[in-house]
């Protein structure tokens, strides 16, 4: 059994710490408290609801990060299940 390979494949504590810290600071620096995120969520729901019927209970919004080649960048991640599309008045 390749024990060494098994150990090596685990992310190192140093990298875990660095990634957790980066994510934490994105929240801290942008003042994105859970309260702010909740307000953002409400606004997004209101905006989208004008056009689509969405499942509010299953939607999730969070700040995450994606890894590009150079560094990790913060992204606003939103997963919003659509139940149906409304007929928007005035649109052909």
């Amino acid at each position: 059994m390749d024990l060494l390979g098994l150990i090596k494949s685990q992310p190192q504590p140093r990298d875990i710490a660095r990634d957790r810290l980066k994510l934490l600071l994105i929240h801290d620096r942008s003042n994105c408290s859970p309260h702010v995120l909740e307000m953002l969520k409400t606004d997004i729901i209101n905006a989208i609801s004008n056009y689509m019927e969405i499942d509010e209970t299953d939607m999730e919004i969070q700040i995450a990060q994606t890894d590009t080649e150079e560094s990790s960048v913060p992204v606003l991640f939103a997963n919003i299940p659509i139940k149906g599309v409304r007929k928007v008045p005035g649109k052909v």
Partner: protein
Amino acid sequence: MSEVYVITSGKGGVGKTTTTANLGAGLAVHDKRVVLVDADIGLRNLDVVMGLENRIVYDIVDVVDGNCRLKQALIKDKRYNNLCLLPAAQTKEKDAVNPEQMQKLCDALRDEFDYVLIDCPAGIEQGFKNAISGVDKAIVITTPEVSAVRDADRIIGLLEAAEVRNPLLILNRIRPDMVKRGDMMALEDVTEILAIDVLGVVPDDESIVISTNRGEPCVTDQESRAGQAFRNITRRLLGETVPLMDLSIDDGIMSKLKKVFKL
């Protein structure tokens, strides 16, 4: 031209007081007139780390309240030329001093000393606001831990907001062996995240515990690695260019044996 520094961190227990004591002693060794100010009112510690706890008569609150003259409250450390301590009050609250009084105090100390080093309390409340109110420059201490670096980032933001520009970073208690194994964040990880200039790196060192127990700063201990780190930092404060300490692990007998047996 005197300089007023605050030594701050946000998080407690990362080495503010130890750093203040060692940089103060280090600067005094270089024949600078230095005063250490303990701004941690209610939880004074700098006197103990310096081994001067038995000589306190008056404290910082007595000075700002006018109960004594500034000179009466300054404790002269006889082991060094021109090193003094202004102790904090132990039985008062943080709001016993306000930022205006602190600023006046700093200005009065400028007349007498080349370096004023203020040991800031942990936290971001009144004690922190007092400690930074009369300063020119800030030294931010952190350790390679998520919580400590996070707090340092917050402190850097607050210093910026208070117009204390370009704080300098000291990364304390680094364990080169753990960094090498990938178990601890390295200096470059921390500087990449905090994006401020580095003043120094201090290795985790038992000699700090020993010297603190004795009440003697380790900066004069030629055997101590942490002492060497503080000597380097002192020289950088004095304007010299000193390369960062080589933290690579000196190969002990075990690793030599491992090499021999190709383990």
